[in-house]
């Protein structure tokens, strides 16, 4: 076959090409064809050389040598047939020649071939993993919403508080679709921040006009159970109260982290709390201590209802807020208008404050277990033995869940792009913990957290699993591997601290009540707090920070109760300064960079700015 230019170039040494000489010297077929051998010998040589599948220059070399060998044999009067016979098996010869010639290639070539094989194997493995990742399907077996609802629905309808709350909220104008509802203007007006279009007098009138509804709220708080049914056919399907959320598709339990979708009532309880607080204050102004007590009691009871309603941590947080508001109002009233509070009332209020002593009295993690297991069953396959692997479908669902509500469509689209899932999936699947690993780590963590809640924060020791999670937070690979659990741990680690603050404030107000009762009996405050025990206090509360007894000095003749604060430095009752603004009740703890502040934590009464 005549050489065309391209063919000739392919068979030219690179050096020749550089020198612009298109010699076609590497044409091994031409070497054989030009040899003065008979066709049988040429055919054998061509067959061998072709089957070696070597590089062109190597084939040229082999062809040239074999041609010379056959020519030498002919010169020695060896017949072609005999030479061919003595040549040996053509296939075997080609195979052995190839093996030997390849062995003779450069180290760099061998390194590149080895690397290429490794890369090829990795690519094949990666594709297999990607396919496994994409085709894997989570197996959602358990309806955790139904499981949570079982105990809620077991309560008779006439013992559920939610219908009464709901009616009162609707009557007072609470509505998720109307963020500008009147009630919010009322609260802003009563706050006195000047951000409302309503006057204080107008806000006060609103409270009085809604007295019957507030009475209904108080009545609702007497019922033993909240009774808010979760999920698709539950209490959230209330367009009058929850607006657009009522017609949204019901999310799975794992969306409980987005409380507005599964627990839309919590926002309303937060609003209701402030309405009750304002009415309690108004009650004291009206010299209606009975209404004040009923309001405060309703806050305590609402807190209990919420806490036991569904055992979500977020519900517990809102419940804590209600409890904290109740304690604060008692403390404020005791400080500003003690004469309005009878001793009997103070005794009753003290009992409600003191019925929680540990964080475990305020929080439970039962539903968090359900929440986590729901996330797991929606993320992972299930092999029937408690194990499984991450799936593209599961991650897509999770991303949708957290991207929902994002205004950035591009982000949502890219998150859900299946091509990204295919490319990144194997990394996630291999790098992420298996179902069993994640579940085991989570259960160990929750068990440890539940145990910790049974101790005051100062005595609670970090468990092995918590220490492990601490190290994971510093490792990028472990962060990826256990990202769900690490993110969860950040939330949970704050739970005990939040509980401690509420409990400590309660203890401060308890001591305040005891001091007031003592003063009423003896005409003055006691010289030392020990004198309050046992008649006015069962025991002196310990400082939740350092374990010593709470400090009780008198400043300007008035007693204060304080903890040394998280800087553990006794400043004799000096609160951290706040530029003349009211001291927030968390002052004396940590700043916004989570560093202990300089100053004491005043538990009673609400402090003013230090001079």
């Amino acid at each position, binding site marked *: 076959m005549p050489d065309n230019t391209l063919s000739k170039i392919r068979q030219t040494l690179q050096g020749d090409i550089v020198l612009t000489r298109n010699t076609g010297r590497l044409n091994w077929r031409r070497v054989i064809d030009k040899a003065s051998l008979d066709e049988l010998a040429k055919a054998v040589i061509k067959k061998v050389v072709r089957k070696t599948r070597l590089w062109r220059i190597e084939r040229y070399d082999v062809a040239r040598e074999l041609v010379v*060998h056959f020519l*030498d044999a002919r010169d020695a009067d060896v017949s072609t047939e005999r030479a061919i016979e003595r*040549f040996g098996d053509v296939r075997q010869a080609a195979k052995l020649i190839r093996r030997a010639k390849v062995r003779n290639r450069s180290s760099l070539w061998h390194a590149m071939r080895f690397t290429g094989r490794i890369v090829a194997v990795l690519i094949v493995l990666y594709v297999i993993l990607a396919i496994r990742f994409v085709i894997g399907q989570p197996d959602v077996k358990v309806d955790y919403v139904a499981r949570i609802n079982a105990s809620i629905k077991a309560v008779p309808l006439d013992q559920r508080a939610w219908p009464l709350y709901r009616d009162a909220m609707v009557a007072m104008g609470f509505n998720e679709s109307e963020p500008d509802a009147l009630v919010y203007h009322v609260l802003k007006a009563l706050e006195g921040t000047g951000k409302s279009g309503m006057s204080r007098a107008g806000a006060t009138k609103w409270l009085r006009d809604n007295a019957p509804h507030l009475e209904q709220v108080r009545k609702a708080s007497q019922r033993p159970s909240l009774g808010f049914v979760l999920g698709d056919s539950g209490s959230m399907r209330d367009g009058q109260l929850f607006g657009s959320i009522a017609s949204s598709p019901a999310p799975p339990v794992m969306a409980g982290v987005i409380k507005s979708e599964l627990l839309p009532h919590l926002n309303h309880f937060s609003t209701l709390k402030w309405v009750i607080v304002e009415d309690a204050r108004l009650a004291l102004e009206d010299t209606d201590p009975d209404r004040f007590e009923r309001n405060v009691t309703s806050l305590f009871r609402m807190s209990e209802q919420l806490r036991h309603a569904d055992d979500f941590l977020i519900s517990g947080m809102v419940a804590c807020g209600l409890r904290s508001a109740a304690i604060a109002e008692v403390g404020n009233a005791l400080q500003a208008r003690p004469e309005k509070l009878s001793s009997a009332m103070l005794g009753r209020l003290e009992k409600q404050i003191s019925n929680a002593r540990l964080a475990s009295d305020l929080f439970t993690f039962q539903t968090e277990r359900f929440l986590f297991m729901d996330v797991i069953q929606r993320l992972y396959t299930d092999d029937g033995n408690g194990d499984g692997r991450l799936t593209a479908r599961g991650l897509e669902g999770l991303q949708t869940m957290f991207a929902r509500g994002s205004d950035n469509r591009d982000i949502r689209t890219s998150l859900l792009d299946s091509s990204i899932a295919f490319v990144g999936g194997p990394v996630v699947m291999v790098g992420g913990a298996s179902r069993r690993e994640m579940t085991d780590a989570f259960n160990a963590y929750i068990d440890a957290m539940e145990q910790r809640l049974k101790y005051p924060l100062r005595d609670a020791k970090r468990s092995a699993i918590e220490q492990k999670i601490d190290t994971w937070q510093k490792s990028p690979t472990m962060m990826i591997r256990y990202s769900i659990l690490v993110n969860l741990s950040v939330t949970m680690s704050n739970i005990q601290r939040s509980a401690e603050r509420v409990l400590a404030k309660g203890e401060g107000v308890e001591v305040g009540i005891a001091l007031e009762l003592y003063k009423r009996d003896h005409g003055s405050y006691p010289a030392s707090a020990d004198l309050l025990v046992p008649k006015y206090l069962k025991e002196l509360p310990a400082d939740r920070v350092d374990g010593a007894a709470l400090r009780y000095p008198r400043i300007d003749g008035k007693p204060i109760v304080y903890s040394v604060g998280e800087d553990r430095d006794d400043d004799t009752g000096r609160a951290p300064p706040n530029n003349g603004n009211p001291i927030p009740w968390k002052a004396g703890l940590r700043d916004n960079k989570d560093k202990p502040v300089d100053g004491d934590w005043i538990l009673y009464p609400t402090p003013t700015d230090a001079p």
Partner: protein
Amino acid sequence: MKIERELMRGAGPAAVLRLLAPAERYGYELVQILEKQSDGVLAMGQSTLYPLLYNLEAKGLIASRVETADNGRDRKYYRLTGRGKRQLVRYRKQWEQLTIAMGKLGVLGA
């Protein structure tokens, strides 16, 4: 007598290195000498010899050069390298010890 492949695999390299020790040779020449000097015992075809030569070259035991002969043929000549010489010495010792051992075992006959 046809020698089994496994035995040839061990003997072939040593034989070729020995033949290249005194002088460089080309492929056909090696085939001829192997057959003649071993009385045909170590006769090997091209399909065996050339892969063997390429292997020895890959291991650096022999080196090659191409020379154009008077008749115009580009003949490839092989020679022993320094490493090849040392390997030949090792082969020789091993074969000596092997022969003695086989003799003691009676494998070599009376």
